[in-house]
């Protein structure tokens, strides 16, 4: 049976990817609220997803405030779909 992707098989990273798969883009504050995580932890996990090429993180300014926006990449989309397929295999769905 195919091994589950270790990048995705983690609670917070999987939650972030599940959200980003359903939207065009989401900002840091929205992800933090939806996943009920801490800013530090979320930041670390976003870096891991970004380094794996699963998401793009864009930092910009709105007035004087910074705004970090995340989008899933094609590679991330494919990895997520494969992860779900592998899950189905494990659960005999």
């Amino acid at each position: 049976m195919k091994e589950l992707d270790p990048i995705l098989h983690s609670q917070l990273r999987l939650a972030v990817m599940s959200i980003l798969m359903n939207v065009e883009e989401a900002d840091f504050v929205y992800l933090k609220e939806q996943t009920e995580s801490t800013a530090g932890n979320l930041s670390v996990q976003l870096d891991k997803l970004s380094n794996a090429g699963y998401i793009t993180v864009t930092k910009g300014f709105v007035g004087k405030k910074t705004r970090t926006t995340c989008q899933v990449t094609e590679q991330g989309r494919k990895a997520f779909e494969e992860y779900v397929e592998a899950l189905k295999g494990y659960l005999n769905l």
Partner: protein
Amino acid sequence: MEEKKMTERESLELITAMITRTRQRYIGDGNILLMWGYLTVIVTALVWIMLITTHNPAWNWLWFAIGVVGGIATPIMSKKSDLKSGVKSYSDKITSQIWTTVGLASVVATLFCVGFGLKGFNAWGMMFAIPLMIVPMAEIAQGIIVKEKSLIVGGAIGLCVGLFTLSLATCACSSTGSCRCS
């Protein structure tokens, strides 16, 4: 939520939970739609009243007010709205593209009217097709996308009224044999 390993079943439950949360659709405060709605109604009514009372086709230049006022206000309002929601969904993207298309159609229609005007023809009456038909159809499309009945019903009523008005105008033109029906 912490970074921890999960069982396969927990993974699936987490994915389902996050999808459900994200699907709690965000319609926004509707201020942009209201602004365009009021602007279109006010300008259309104003143009119609001025044309009826003065018979001066120069009042058709007022159509530009929709594009100018709406074009300036929309980016400002949508920026605030995006910041408030923190997320941009696929329906937001499609909705934005629909209204951009309506805006471009209005610009093209205006250019045609100006072009015909330069050749000595009065084609400004055609501009009524935008608020009477194209805008209600876009409103219905948006209502279907965001599953908002008020937009679908409002758009449908607007479309019926628009078609009725255009039918009346066509009948009036046919009976007088004139194309100067603005």
